[in-house]
Structure formats: structure tokens, C-alpha cells
């Protein structure tokens, strides 16, 4: 479970990237975080993962306050960053062992998990290669395996489908569903609205640092009294006057 309470972040004291947002992602749900470029998605995710410190507000992960007990909070989640270009000169296996060690994945479980996920994402034949020889998609798969190796309760995935081939994308979506169905949390950002529509239990739309909408797709349809696609409702939301849009803050359910 992820709870954001009145979280704000500005850069250089001027540009408010995230403006007093409240967000609760329940256990057992896949939560999609949507918004146009520069809306505040990645800043929010970076705050949830401890990469950025909020100017104000509090973030808890599975009840652990990130500000007060960052190490325990960080152990609860697995994070896939939006840029998979990490440590290009390490071999894939070295990277996975690095992650396994830092997240204390027991030796007896680690090997099995690496093999199982590498097979699932068709990366087994390249585990002995340096990451720099990988394509974007392969790097993305490696990031996903590394992030999920310790079987975290909370998955935080920033644009996880980018660069994935259809089979791997399908696999990941299946894994997200299984994870949520087992009572745990998946929080992911995406630009691909079709994916959000098909996969997410709930979505939040952020623009100019404010949450414009938070709820189920059905609730959004209900609100707009429309049977349009998520794409058209999304466009209508973010194209609105910011003053009016601010009035839509909060959960519409």
C-alpha cells in the first residue's frame, strides 16, 4: 500500500512540479499513473522511491514512513526506472547478483528466481553478456528482473512497457495481475492509455503537478457521461482550464 499525504515538490523554489497531492494506492490493485510529459509523474515516483525528498508532506509504504525509516521503506518496493541504461559495463548476471545481494535475497532462492524470470523474459541466453551489448528492450527486461528479484510487496514501475516486445509486455502484464491478485500493490506510470485501460484497476491523472482525477475508468466514464475511450477522456481532462480542472481534485468514486 502506498499513501501520499499532501506531498509537494518544487525545483529551484519556483517551478512546482508536484503540488500538494494526496494519493492512496490500496493493496490488491494495479494503479496506473497517467499524465502528459512534464506533468509530475516521474517526480512523484522519484519521491515515492526516495530518490527525491518532498518539500512537504509524507509518504508511507506498507505503513512505513519513508522520511522516518527510509531503509525499511525501501526494502518493501521494487523499482523499475524510466531509463534502463544502468551499469553498462557489468554483465547481466553480475547486475542481478548485485541486486540480489543488496536486497538480501537468500542464496537458495536467488538462483531459482533468476533462472525463472530470465526464462520468462527470454534473457537466459544473454546473462553472461555485458549490459552495454543489450538492446533497449533487453535492458528494460533486466531492470524488471532486478527489481522483482526480492519479491517486493510494492511494485513501482516507471514506463515499464517501453521497448518491450509483445511477448514480454504480455508477460509483464500477467505478472502485474498475479501480483495484485495476491493482495499486493502495483503502481505504474504509462503513456500508453490502451494498456492503462486494459490493465489498471484504478488510475490517477496528473497535470501541472496536480491530480486531476483519481478513480476507476468506469467512474471516469460516469463523470464524463461518456462511452468514449480513456484517450478522449484523458485529452479532455488535461486540455481543460487548470482553474476548472483543479475543481476535479480527489477521488470521484
Amino acid at each position: 500500500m502506498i499513501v501520499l499525504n499532501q506531498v509537494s515538490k518544487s525545483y529551484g523554489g519556483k517551478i512546482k512540479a508536484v503540488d500538494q497531492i494526496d494519493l492512496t494506492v490500496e493493496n490488491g490493485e494495479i494503479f496506473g499513473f497517467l499524465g502528459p510529459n512534464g506533468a509530475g509523474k516521474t517526480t512523484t515516483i522519484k519521491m515515492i522511491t526516495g530518490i527525491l525528498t518532498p518539500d512537504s508532506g509524507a509518504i508511507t509504504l506498507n505503513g512505513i514512513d519513508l522520511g522516518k525509516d527510509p531503509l525499511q521503506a525501501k526494502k518493501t518496493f521494487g523499482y523499475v526506472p524510466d531509463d534502463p541504461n544502468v551499469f553498462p559495463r557489468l554483465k547481466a548476471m553480475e547486475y542481478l547478483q548485485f541486486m540480489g545481494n543488496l536486497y538480501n535475497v537468500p542464496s537458495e532462492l536467488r538462483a531459482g528466481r533468476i533462472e525463472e524470470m530470465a526464462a520468462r523474459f527470454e534473457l537466459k541466453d544473454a546473462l553472461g553478456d555485458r549490459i552495454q551489448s543489450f538492446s533497449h528492450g533487453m535492458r528494460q527486461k533486466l531492470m524488471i528482473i532486478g527489481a522483482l528479484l526480492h519479491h517486493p510487496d510494492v511494485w513501482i514501475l516507471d514506463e515499464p512497457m517501453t521497448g518491450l516486445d509483445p511477448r514480454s509486455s504480455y508477460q509483464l502484464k500477467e505478472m502485474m495481475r498475479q501480483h495484485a491478485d495476491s493482495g499486493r500493490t502495483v503502481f505504474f506510470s504509462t503513456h500508453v492509455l490502451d494498456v492503462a485501460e486494459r490493465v489498471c484497476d484504478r488510475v490517477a491523472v496528473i497535470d501541472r503537478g496536480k491530480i486531476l482525477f483519481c478513480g476507476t475508468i468506469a467512474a471516469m466514464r460516469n463523470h464524463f457521461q461518456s462511452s468514449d475511450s480513456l484517450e478522449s477522456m484523458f485529452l479532455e481532462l488535461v486540455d481543460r482550464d487548470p482553474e476548472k480542472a483543479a475543481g476535479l481534485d480527489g477521488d470521484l468514486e
Partner: protein
Amino acid sequence: MRHVFLLTWTMMRGNGLMNLSGDNRKKRKLLGKVGNTILMLLVAVYFGGLVAAGAHFIYGLLAPAGLQDLLISLFVSATVLMVFFFGVLYVISIFYHSSDVEKLLPLPLTPESIIGAKLIVTAVYEYVFVTLMILPPLIVYGVLDRQPWTFYLISLLVLLLLPLIPLCTAAVLVMLIMRLTPVARNKDRFSMVSGLLSMVVAIGIMYGMQSLGSFFGDALTRMIQTGSDRLASVAASVFPGTRFAVAALTSPSAGAALLQILLLILLTAAILVLTLGVARLVYFKGVIGLSASTARRRAVTTDTVRRSSRQQSSIIVLMRKDLLILIRTPIFFMNNVLMNLIWPVFFLVPLISTGDGLADIRQMAQSLDLAGGGRTAAIVLAVCVAAACFITGTNGISSSALSREGKLIYFMKYLPVSYTRQLWAKVLTGAAMGMVGVLLLFLIALFFLRPVWWYTLLLLAVLPGTILVSSLSGIYFDLLWPKLNWDNEQKAVKQNVNVLFGMLVPILLAGLMLGLVIGLELTLMPAALLTLLLPWLLVLVGHQLLRKVARPLLEQIQ
């Protein structure tokens, strides 16, 4: 032509030639610029001074025999050959391995425009070297030989023209090689090999300079004459412009000199046109597809996965990651890893090149009274400790530890490992590499000193604390001003003023301990206590400070 200038401008900005510090913060940017400029000026003055002193010495030897013109021939030929050697390395790196190549290829640019711009960028690098290499001897020659003002004008023209022919020759050679063979297509391997080769050349030059000292009088004059003749004939036969340059500088009349310059200009222009012609024919064919990395696709067996899945301490794991990256990244390897090994080699070369002097030094070293535990033993101990400080301080591993992470610094922030622990892993990485260099030097020292066994143990006991505190001090500078915004690794370690700052504390500490041991006339035991306890005390204080500042400083980095 407009494209060429536009590209040159862009490349120079990108290469940091016009922007020494890549950091956005103004204060830091200014500090970086000032620090880098001072460092560069110091290096330039030092190098130029050395060359001028050498030229002055050689002139003194040649002038009595009326052979002073050989000085010009010697330096011009040597410069041309060096420009060619470095030219080959620069051309491979700037024409083929530079990160901008991928961005330039899709643009509607002709190969001549790209190569024209890249040639200018490479020439700028070469001009820096040529100025340092040829200007001091020309000034020395001009002053001592009472040359008229026209000599300096001719010198300036030679300086501008001289590197172009060897550089173009290097460019043509490399372009043909890259078109026809797979040599140097692996970027990492090439960088590593070329870096090592440059270092071998540098050490060779040093060895040669040291060997000069073992010749005297006529023998030395004869050697310079033979050497100069050989160099001149090689340079002139490969690079025809060398002859015109030497003739211009040694012509008795300004008119004759200008005629030689005119010939040099014509020849240079012809070779430039030829180079661009070759570029038009072969550059794209050689460079396209170069950036695509290849892999053998090595699967890992179940057994290997099992064996490598051993749980290890987070410090060891983080150190291992940093060490692997340091060793496998050519720029980091050359600047951070090799630096530890280079000092022992620099220390050894003068000793070996003096020939008989080796035995004398060994005899002198062994005559030092170490077993008595007096002041001599204390000073030797302090010198060893100072050397350990110096070696660890100059490797720049901890003082560039965060900068080397670059944009991946965010990785440190979401790992479930405390910041202090992560920073200690970086400090220990620097210390481990420092230890390798120090142990090498230690072995050399043992060879010369042959100390009693307890003195050896004493040395081994005082070194770890010294190495650790030297490495620890570097991390604070990088924590305060990390240089994270870079697009090539060079900027993280070579153009990073933190590496310079990181040397300060170890050098000050070395000076302090040496000063105290000598100034207070300490005998061995008090000196041992000082060199053992002071570094550990500083490590303790440093650790407390790190615990305090790690989180707030790392959180500041966004």
C-alpha cells in the same frame, strides 16, 4: 564551409574545450574553471620549462661546434613524429569513437564537412601540444642565436602549419584502416590499448631523457647529432613538409625563409584537399555500423547461477561493482587504476636508467640504520607513510566516486543500504586500489632497504590507516560538488576539479607527518605512534562527519 564552422563550434562546446566544467551551478562552475585553468597553466609551465631547459642544454653543447641548427631539426622532427603518433590516437577517438558520430550521421552533411570540422577539433588538441613542444626551443634558439624579429614571425607560421601534414597523414591512414580492417573497431579495447601505448611512450621518453644524463661532452654531442639526423631523415621522408619547416627556420635570409613557408603552405593545402577527398570516398563506409555493439550471447549455466548466488556483505558487493566498472571503463582504468601503478614505475625508471647507480643506491639504502630505531629509521618511516598518502591521494578514486556515477546517482538513493555504508564502500574501493600501488612501492623499498623483520611489520602496520584516511578525505569534495552532468566519462575524472582537491588533504597530511617527525626530531617509536595513531584518529573523526553529512548532502542532489 558554413557547416564546417558550425560543426566545429558545436563539437568544441561538447568536448569541453570551451566549457571546462559541466556543472550548472554558477559558483561551482567558476571554481571548476579557475581550478582547471590553474592546473592546466601549471602543467603547461612545467612542461614548457622542461623543454626549454632541455633545449638550452642542447644548444650549449652544439653551439661550440657550430651545429646549433641541429636543435631546430631535432625539435621539429620530434614534434612532427609525436603529432603523427598522437594524431592516430586522436583521429580514431574523435572521428570514429566520439559519441557525436551517431548524432551526425543522420544529418544531411557531407563527409567532407564532418571530417573538416573534426580535423579542426583534432588540430586544436595538437596545437596545444605543438606549442609546448616547439615554442620553448624556438625562443631559446632565437634568443641565444640572436635571431632577428622575422625569425619569430616565421616561427609562428611554422607553428601553425607544422601539425597539419602529420595530422592529415594520420587521418588518411586511419580512415583507410577503418574502411578495410576491423582493427580498432572495438571502442573499449582501443581506448585501453592506446592509453597504455601512450603511457609506454611517455615512460620511454622519460627513460631516454634519464639515459641522456649518463653521456658527457663529445659523446653526448655525437649522440644528439646522430639522433637528430635519424629523426630528421625519418620525419622528412614520411612528412615532406618537415624539410621546408626546418629550412624556413634556419634560412639566413627572410626572403628565402618565406619562400620555404610558401612551399609548406602549398603542400599543406594539397594534403588537406587529398584528406577531404579520401574522407569523401571512405569515411561513411568505415564509420557506419561502428556504434552497433556486438555480443557473443553467452548463456549462463544453472551451476554458475547457483555458485554466484552466494550472499555477501553489502560493502563487498558495492566495492566489487565499483572495482569492475573502474577496471572495465577505459577512461577510469587509465586515470584511476593505472595511476596507482604508475608511481612505482616512475620511481623505478630513473633508478634503472642510471645503470651502475642502482647498486650505489642499494648500498646507500642498506647503510641506513633502521634497526637502531633512531632518527633515520623514523624519517624513512615517515617518508614511506608520505608516499602512501601521495599514491592514494593521486588515484582520484574516492574524490570522483560520485561524479563517476553521473546520472546513475539516483541508483544510490533507492537502494536499501544506508548512505554512509554506500559511501564507505566507495572510500574502501579507493583505499584498495591505493593499497595495490603502495604495496608495489613497498616491495621496491624492501628490495633497496632490506630492513629487519620488525621494521617491515611496523611499516605494514602504519600504512593501512594512512591509505584509508587519504581515500576518505577525497569523498567529501565529491559529496559537496559532484560532477554528475557528463556525456563522456572523461569529464567525470579528467575534467573534475574534485580530483585535484582530493589530492590536497593527503599531501598536507604527508607534509604534516614528515614535518613533525623531522621538526620534532622524533626517534622511531614516537614517529611510529604518530604515523599509526594520527591517521586512525582522523578516520574516526571522518567517519562521524560522514555519518552526519551523508544524508543531507546526498538528498540535496536532485
